[in-house]
């Protein structure tokens, strides 16, 4: 009985490590964007300038790791990536820790992205939505942002399965 309870507890803990992000491609980025400028705005007041700055750092670092060059000023072959954070809710880590299994304290992240080429023509569009339901000590919202960063790289490289 005791062993069964322990096993159930361990499985619950492992299963509750849930941070995910989903990519919805509205218009595939063709050709893939390998050199971009990145601008991020927000349509929600729930994200502070500090959080926006941290998000920009996280996205830039991830895109660079995935082979996409983020440059300060556009050149002849540079695509412009304009992102809008539509929903940014970090949820409650304490609620997730204790009651995450019933969906309490859930964190959410919704964003939309437009890619234009050097001539200003739109060459791609996508939405990235993410959520966090639990994890160690209630899970971390940064996990969602990391997943969202990976999805953005997938969108820009036209590799949605990435």
């Amino acid at each position, binding site marked *: 009985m005791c062993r069964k309870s322990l096993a159930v507890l361990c499985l619950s*803990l492992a299963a509750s490590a849930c941070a995910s992000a989903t990519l919805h491609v509205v218009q595939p980025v063709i050709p893939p964007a390998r050199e971009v400028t990145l601008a991020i705005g927000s349509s929600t007041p729930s994200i502070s300038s*500090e959080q926006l*700055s941290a998000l920009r*750092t996280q996205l*830039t670092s991830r895109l660079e790791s995935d082979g996409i060059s*983020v440059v*300060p000023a556009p050149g002849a072959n540079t695509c412009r990536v304009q992102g809008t954070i539509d929903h940014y809710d970090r949820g409650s880590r304490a609620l997730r820790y204790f009651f995450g299994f019933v969906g309490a304290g859930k964190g959410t992240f919704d964003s939309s992205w437009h890619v234009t080429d050097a001539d200003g023509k739109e060459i791609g569009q996508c939405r990235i939505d993410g959520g966090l339901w639990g994890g160690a000590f209630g899970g971390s919202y940064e996990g969602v942002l990391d997943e969202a960063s990976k999805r953005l790289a997938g969108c820009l490289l036209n590799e949605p399965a990435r």
Partner: protein
Amino acid sequence: MSLERAGPLTPRRTALSLVGAWALLGSGCATLAHGTHQTIHFESKPEGAMLTETTTGQTWRMPTEVSLWRRRHYRLLASMDGYRPEEVYLTREIPFGWWLADALTLGLGAIVDATTGGFYELGPERVVVVLEPLPPSPPAAAP
């Protein structure tokens, strides 16, 4: 206390001793395994921007690798003449593996790791800061 007075070594006592030894030996296992500091690589575009740790005022020129104490929150400022300064925030996480390992040491490990900061992972490990050029300032009006 002599061994004779401690009584015979029963399976129950053996198990308790092993659990106690595990809890003590495993204490602060994250601290022991990967130390209290983590090396983070910083680079800027364009190269050569200054990176300032806002709390201590310590500065580095990018690209650079900096050994940072895992326990602290970091807010840094990247700056360069002619470019808009950019704030950099590092995240601090407790990976599930360390959390579980510390739980198995009956909480002793968590106390040690929380004190030293050993179970935190700072991120991202490679930080790329892109600085936006400032718009050219208008020429000063002639007197």
